């Protein structure tokens, strides 16, 4: 059964559609890698699927409360310790295993450090560990490996693989090869054409 089904989706940034006619499905245990040049709308597409902004047209089907979203900002509070940060999201998302999340991203020795004292890569690892804690089946990840070193990238790939093996799924925008057994979707052919739209995405399309 599919965790995420996207039909004929068009998304817009700044009132102009970026990609249109995008369709794909992701089943449990599968990962889909999004590729495409800068500015084509990978982030916009991910945010739309995550429910942070409305789609211009098309349908997104998924079970309720399925998404865990992780983007450039990790949502960490520097004044809280590593385990307090995870503990907060664990309570908000309703229960996950903090210890397992810490060990998955090799953060156990840092558990009592304030997050402000972490390096950029360590913060990133903490942001990704939050995914385990959220216990959501569908991970939506926007460039998850930024500022990770090679060893951490491998560790992260293991974490995703384990998630998939447990019946989860992932939609990832990334430029590096994670070594996952995943489908790849190149967004370049879906670039929106500047044709007059029957249903404008925003002011910039309504008045052009």
């Amino acid at each position: 059964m599919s965790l995420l089904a996207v039909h004929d989706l068009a998304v817009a940034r700044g009132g102009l559609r970026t990609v249109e006619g995008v369709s794909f499905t992701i089943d449990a245990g599968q990962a889909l890698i999004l590729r495409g040049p800068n500015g084509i709308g990978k982030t916009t597409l991910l945010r739309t699927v995550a429910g942070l902004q409305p789609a211009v047209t098309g349908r997104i089907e998924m079970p309720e409360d399925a998404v865990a979203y992780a983007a450039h900002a990790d949502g960490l509070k520097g004044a809280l310790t590593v385990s307090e940060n995870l503990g907060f999201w664990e309570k908000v998302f309703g229960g996950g295993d903090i210890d397992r999340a810490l060990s998955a991203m090799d953060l156990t020795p840092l558990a009592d450090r304030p997050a402000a004292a972490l390096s950029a890569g360590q913060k990133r690892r903490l942001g990704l560990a939050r995914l385990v804690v959220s216990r959501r089946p569908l991970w939506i990840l926007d460039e998850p490996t930024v500022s990770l070193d090679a060893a951490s990238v491998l560790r992260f790939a293991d974490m995703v693989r384990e998630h998939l093996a447990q019946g989860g799924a992932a939609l990832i925008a990334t430029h590096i090869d994670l070594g996952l057994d995943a489908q790849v979707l190149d967004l370049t052919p879906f670039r929106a054409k500047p044709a007059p739209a029957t249903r404008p995405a925003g002011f910039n399309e309504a008045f052009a």
Partner: protein
Amino acid sequence: MIALLRRDLALAVRAGGGFGLGVAFFLILCALVPFGVGPDTAALQPIAAGILWLGALLACLLSLDRIFALDHEDGSLDLLATSPLPLEGAVAVKAMAHWITTGLPLIVVAPLFGILLHLPPAAIPALLGSLLLGTPALSMLGAFGAAVTVGLRRGGLLLSLLVLPLYIPTLIFGTEMIRRGQEGGDMGPPLLFLAGITAGVLAVIPFAAAAALRVNLR
């Protein structure tokens, strides 16, 4: 929800200044007024209620932009929006955290500052009652203003411009209640108006604020 409240309170305590800053501002304001109008009881007493309310209102305004700005910068707001918590609930909880960290300390010290301004002791129950009923509305309306201006570069000034007019009814009924308490008048009508405004604001504004937040997140 409780987790979010506890986190916001913990952050306010640890970041420092969360509890103290508003009260310190309030104190300075109350200490400056006699320099402006003179030290006579005859000059201070009639305006004490107004000064106390204005001070509370401005102290509340100081920390409003932090309600959402920090969470917006570090991405927490995105994550909260995708969490099982309804955004309306998150808004209400964050407004409540703001009230606990700024409104509540102000209420606690207000009688003390009332003495500084020669507010008659008979008016102190009215002062406490009006602040207790009115300040939650200030925090919630402030959360609405913060939600509208989150992510704007010149947000701080605009926030005051948008929020202060919304405070007018609360200010009017709050000071009126103290004035009547001072003069031994009937406090019923202003009390009911104040309670009604706060109840209405708490019930409706979270939806408007959440709608504004969703617009600013996309």
